[in-house]
């Protein structure tokens, strides 16, 4: 059942042996539970520090935007959530592939843990984008390319979440989700491209998103800090959820009982 519980002795001698060892170790829920418990604090600390500095910098220190006024400060939370939501979808697709090809248990848990996070992140990106849109474009909802493709990503997350809930047997549910995550990953670029094309076709002149030529460092740096901070937050929550899933699925194992 678990492919990752083989011994590492053979892998050590080959070239890239350490990579193979890491691969096998990643397949071991127990190893992940132990090491994840340590990584958790690292990522968590980074997330708190970076998000605190980045948010205060973005809210109170970064200069006012001459076009949008202070509403542009929403960017410092909007852009990171959107980026993390997208990366999370790629992670889901990759985890799905690993699960189907190598049947690695941890990939299933990564997929299960990542979906609710991605769901909330894309919902947050849409919500903060819509709040940002009201003072900027004068409308709560503008169907432009990015909004629509993020909305579709949110629906795919909801579908992934609902599909897992609907299939009673856990292993089948995980593999079905893996198939859907891969199908979604293949489709997301096509959807994005088609929505962008649709946007140029229906170019109404009521609004236009002016790409600013170059963001000054005083705006770019807090954004960068928050993006990294959101990634760290994502990693923290992902690991925490995966550890919970490890305990849930291995609850009969001896090492869990001995914790």
């Amino acid at each position, binding site marked *: 059942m678990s492919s990752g519980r083989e011994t590492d002795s053979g892998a050590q001698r080959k070239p890239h042996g350490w990579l193979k060892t890491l691969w096998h170790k990643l397949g071991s829920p127990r190893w992940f539970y132990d090491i994840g418990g340590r990584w958790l604090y690292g990522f968590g600390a980074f997330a708190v520090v970076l998000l605190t500095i980045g948010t205060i910098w973005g809210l109170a220190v970064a200069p006012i935007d001459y076009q949008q006024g202070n509403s542009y400060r929403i960017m410092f939370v909007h852009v990171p959530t959107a980026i993390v939501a997208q990366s999370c979808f790629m992670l889901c697709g990759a985890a799905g592939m690993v699960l189907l090809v190598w049947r690695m248990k941890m990939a299933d848990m990564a997929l299960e843990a990542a979906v609710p996070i991605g769901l909330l992140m894309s919902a947050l990106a849409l919500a903060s984008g819509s709040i940002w849109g009201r003072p900027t474009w004068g409308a709560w909802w503008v169907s432009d390319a990015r909004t629509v493709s993020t909305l579709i990503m949110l629906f795919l997350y909801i579908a992934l979440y609902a599909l897992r809930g609907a299939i009673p047997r856990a292993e*089948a549910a995980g593999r079905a989700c893996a198939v859907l995550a891969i199908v979604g990953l293949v489709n997301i670029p096509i959807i994005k491209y088609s929505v962008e094309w649709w946007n140029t076709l229906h170019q109404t002149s009521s609004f236009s998103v002016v790409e600013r030529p170059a963001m000054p460092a005083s705006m770019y740096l807090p954004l960068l800090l928050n993006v990294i901070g959101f990634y760290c937050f994502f990693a923290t929550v992902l690991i925490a959820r995966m550890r919970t899933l490890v305990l849930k699925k291995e609850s009969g194992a001896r090492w869990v009982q001995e914790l």
Partner: protein
Amino acid sequence: MTVFVSSLARDWRANLRQPSQIINPLAFFLLVVSLFPLGVGPEPLVLARIAPGVVWVLALLAALLSVEGLYRQDYDDGSLEQLVIGARPLYFAVLGKATSQWLVTGAPLTLLAPIAGFMLYLPTEQVGWLMLSLALGTPTITLLAGIGAALTVGVNRGGTLLALIILPLFVPVLIFGTAVTETLLLGASREFPLLILCALLAASITLAPFAIAAALKIGVEQ
């Protein structure tokens, strides 16, 4: 190839035995089209403007309605398990099933599109383009819908879940499908969306059966 033909023939015969399953989605399609003039008013210009979009969205919904039972009966009577275990290249068996599904949903819907077009005052010269776009787009729709149907094969009352899974995947076909008919109104070329529809069809014929086959294997195991 024999797998493809035998799977196609078997499903074709099974479909003919239950004509209501074919007729109901088509009736739904025409029924909802006839509701639109009542909903948005009988103004020909407004209806002609929204006609391609209405026809296309309803084509998606009709596909959704008809695909729900695609694998359900085979699953219940155990013949799906035989198919998954027995059919050597499962790819062709799945493709055959999708083809027969298209022949009873997408194809008749394409043939009914002129009626829907006339009900919505679509200019006569546009009707041919609408049919062409449907002829190229509905096979893709059937294949994508098949993925959702295969994933939810063991799920009781999977209807809304099925919609949640496949409707987002339909977006590219919807955009380029409506664009074929709408470009005249918007002043862009027609070849491009048609080519993209062909590309989407080719991609889904090569890739979607693999996803359907993988999903069916999982569904049968549970």
